[in-house]
């Protein structure tokens, strides 16, 4: 797994003919403007919001900004919703700011991976110790930070920085917000909104008290004058992927930082006797050529964890590696072998994940990441195989139409994305969209937005369809 941007940072890429300098300059200007706003607000109860498309280098921006804040002598708390995200932030902060001491405060059994924990200056104190020591930079999940504040009094920071702030809900933000007066909220507006297991989770929708609105949502509702900046670049996605990604970011212009042709995925030719795998090979070849492939099984309503779809995905992943996939990119000028850990399979449900995990393990592919869209948020891979949320569905519903879910699945990749579904899926969107409830004070409509986004994506993938 890699995270964007890698060695070529927005802060100092220099003149590089592999990158679109105009796009990078615009992104740099936006980021500098955000930092200037934030530094000007330190000491006040105020915030800055940074809205970004997928792969905009948010973590890089966050890490660089944390370094600037620390250099200004400020005490910083850095938080994100999940353990994976905060662990990755520790590594990113240390990468950009080797001299900055990092205190990682974690929950039981959520210690840092050994390689990150071994970095100089990284400690893993208890919340009580972090408070007693007055650690200048504390990194924790939002839940852990809130718990440490309530239980151990860990607070008194100058700035709270929240990454993936559109994924954090207002209820969790409520407690963590008190650790510092000035906030920087960075997030991807296209990703999944906070969710609840309750049937009537919309009970508070539209009200200022709604605990399921995003952290950014509650902040802007109460403080509409808060500056919101848009980051106009994606480092992760290639120019081939950007048109599809734009379906999820209406009103937010952005371009790929990398120039066309810089990234490349290469496969060996299918060997003799490969006829049985012809559709799989065709899908892989299409993905290599255009960055996208939409593989469709014959239309049929199927069970959610459909074995045929799972087997097809396993074959795609296995064949990808069997054909000695190699990648080249702005960070790797020469071709290098694609590693299993650089491949992810994105799904919508845990039973799909479990089925695929077992199937991939049985083929000796434990290194390939399989996870739900919720868990893949914020992560980057070279190649992603996405189990389409509507694959084989008999009807549409709010969960499977959620544009955030599709956005996450289709925007994790740097080289290619292979979407797997059934050829009847698009027909689900024919006709009139379903009636949806309206809520005073709440404009978004995930069902209608999702209907629109799904239809746009189907249209853009039309030329990449491979029948399996």
């Amino acid at each position: 797994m890699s995270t964007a941007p890698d060695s070529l940072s927005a802060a100092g890429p220099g003149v590089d003919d592999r990158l679109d300098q105009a796009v990078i300059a615009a992104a740099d200007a936006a980021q500098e403007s955000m930092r200037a706003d934030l530094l000007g607000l330190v000491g006040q109860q105020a915030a800055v919001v940074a809205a970004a498309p997928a792969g905009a280098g948010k973590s890089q921006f966050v890490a660089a900004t944390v370094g600037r804040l620390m250099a200004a002598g400020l005490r910083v708390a850095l938080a994100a919703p999940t353990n994976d995200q905060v662990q990755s932030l520790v590594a990113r902060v240390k990468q950009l700011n080797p001299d900055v001491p990092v205190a990682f405060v974690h929950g039981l059994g959520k210690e840092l991976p050994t390689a990150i924990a071994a970095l100089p200056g990284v400690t893993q104190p208890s919340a009580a110790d972090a408070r007693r020591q007055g650690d200048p930079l504390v990194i924790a999940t939002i839940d852990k930070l809130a718990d440490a504040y309530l239980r151990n009094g860990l607070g008194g920071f100058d700035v709270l920085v929240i990454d993936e702030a559109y994924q954090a809900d207002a209820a969790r933000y409520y407690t963590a917000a008190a650790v510092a007066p000035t906030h920087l909220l960075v997030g991807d507006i296209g990703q999944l909104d906070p969710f609840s297991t309750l049937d009537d989770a919309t009970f508070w929708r539209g009200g200022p008290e709604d605990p399921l609105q995003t952290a950014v949502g509650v902040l802007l509702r109460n403080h509409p004058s808060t500056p919101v900046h848009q980051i106009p670049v994606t480092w992760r996605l290639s120019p081939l992927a950007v048109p599809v990604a734009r379906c999820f970011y209406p009103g937010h212009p952005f371009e790929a930082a990398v120039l066309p042709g810089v990234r490349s995925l290469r496969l060996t030719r299918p060997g003799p006797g490969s006829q049985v795998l012809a559709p799989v090979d065709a899908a892989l070849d299409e993905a290599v050529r255009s960055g996208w492939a939409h593989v469709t099984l014959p239309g049929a309503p199927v069970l959610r964890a459909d074995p045929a779809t799972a087997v097809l995905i396993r074959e795609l992943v296995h064949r990808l590696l069997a054909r000695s996939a190699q990648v080249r990119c702005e960070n790797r000028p020469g071709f290098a072998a694609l590693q299993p850990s650089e491949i992810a399979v994105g799904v919508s449900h845990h039973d799909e994940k479990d089925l695929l995990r077992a199937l991939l393990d049985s083929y000796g592919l434990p290194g390939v990441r399989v996870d739900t869209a919720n868990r893949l948020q914020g992560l980057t891979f070279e190649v992603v195989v996405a189990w389409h949320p509507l694959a084989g569905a008999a009807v549409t519903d709010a969960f499977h139409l959620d544009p955030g879910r599709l956005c996450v699945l289709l925007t994790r990749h740097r080289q290619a994305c292979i979407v797997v579904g059934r050829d009847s899926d698009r027909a689900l969107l024919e006709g009139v969209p379903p009636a949806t409830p309206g809520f005073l004070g709440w404009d978004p409509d995930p069902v209608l937005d999702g209907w629109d986004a799904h239809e746009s994506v189907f249209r853009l993938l039309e030329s990449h369809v491979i029948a399996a």
Partner: protein
Amino acid sequence: MSTALEAYFAARIYEEGRALRRTTLRHVHLADSPLAIAMWRLGGERFRAAAVAWGPPGGPFQLAVPGEPRNRDLYFAALRPFAADLCTRVRLAAVAREPRQRGSVTEHIPADALQIVVPNKATVSALGLLGRYLAYLSDRGGVTPDPALIEAGKHLRFYARNARVPGQALLVPLDRLVADHWATLLSPFEQANLAALDAQISPAAGLHPFEASSAAEAEVVVGPEPTEEVDSRTEALLTRFNAARGTSTDPSTVARLVEPLREHYRSLVEPVWSLMNRVFERERHVTAAPSVRRRFESDREAFGRHVDWVINQGGYYRTTDTPRQAAIILRRLEDTLARYEADRAVEDPACMIPHLLDGDAIRGTVASVAETKVVVSVRAVRRAVMTLDSPDTVILPEGKLLWWTETADGHPWKVESVSSNGAGSRIVLMLTGKPAPERLPGVGDLITLSTLCTGQKSFWLMPPVDAPWTHQPDVPPAAPEPIDVGDSEQPAAAVDAAAAADPGRYT
């Protein structure tokens, strides 16, 4: 919900011609003597009750019909007996208390709580709106509303809000009770009709469930929303009533004139009352699951807190939650839902089936249980390793945590490996706690393990009382107007258009 199980149910019901139980136990407490309430509204007036029927299910009901519910005097006069009776029943139910020990603290919670039974979830919402209206009545025009109306409004508001708690039994909508315990051929939208649901369970001889539902729906109109046909009849009667009374609100005059409307609503209530009793009695005779008692204890605790606040302290509830309240409620409801779903599956084999089908649970025979030692942190600790033979193909990743249904509130077992075993699978699991005898199944036992835990997985603290600046508006909102400020029963004083400064406004 398992798609596979739903498909199976649909096929079986279609074939057998009647609904099938999806549980072997009843998972909701049903009281011996609840209070049943049925209600109707006018087509375009969501906040007013055009008729309220109340009483014991199966027994005689009382009926409140104001005639013109948009007239404040008539409305309050009609609702007063209902409000007074509701308040009396709530107070009586809360009198007897019993001690309940929690740690070193002894609380006295009501020994019982008034259970209200309504035909459907729409009535829950309607009662909530009625409660919201009554609870905050102001002294409009210098006339203090009957305190019983205000108190009843607070009770209704409490009941309706508490109805969000998964598995609660203070306010039982019978459509949900049936849908949770029976599989039918009806869509979620169609399941909102109690008559249609009931008809699938016991269809008339020779009728397919679809036909039975269709006939029942046409025969029994379940409120609170009137059908177009009911609303047309109501409107005609209401027009005649208003024409006959003029502006009179005199009780003796109104009592005589309102009789046709009362008869209209009585004819609507009677079949619903009978339907409610049939549904209630059918479910009441099903054995209750063990956890029903514990959930009703939580209900009694909530009921006791409500009574103490509203009756003993004269308190009011906020009309909307604060961000802190909403955050706490959300978390509590999510925890309660997870516990309720786990309770159902762990106690009721039929409720475990969807989890088995979806791969969230496994069932098999214990082939061996052995003790071993593993290093946790830096210490070697005792652990039990169990081998389970399942006749099914098991798909579980290593490291998955599963709880044995007998110790579902304790330590989970971690999946160590899964391998083929004939037509089925052999699963090796390790207990994540010390291997005490009560935590270990015996060799040869047929057991079920699932991802469902009935214990508390995590402990969370209350958010701070003071909202952070992020959750407070820049400018505090203006104080709201009284909730009944828009009532129209006192028309604005007549204006002499000729004498007005801007006569065009009145012509």
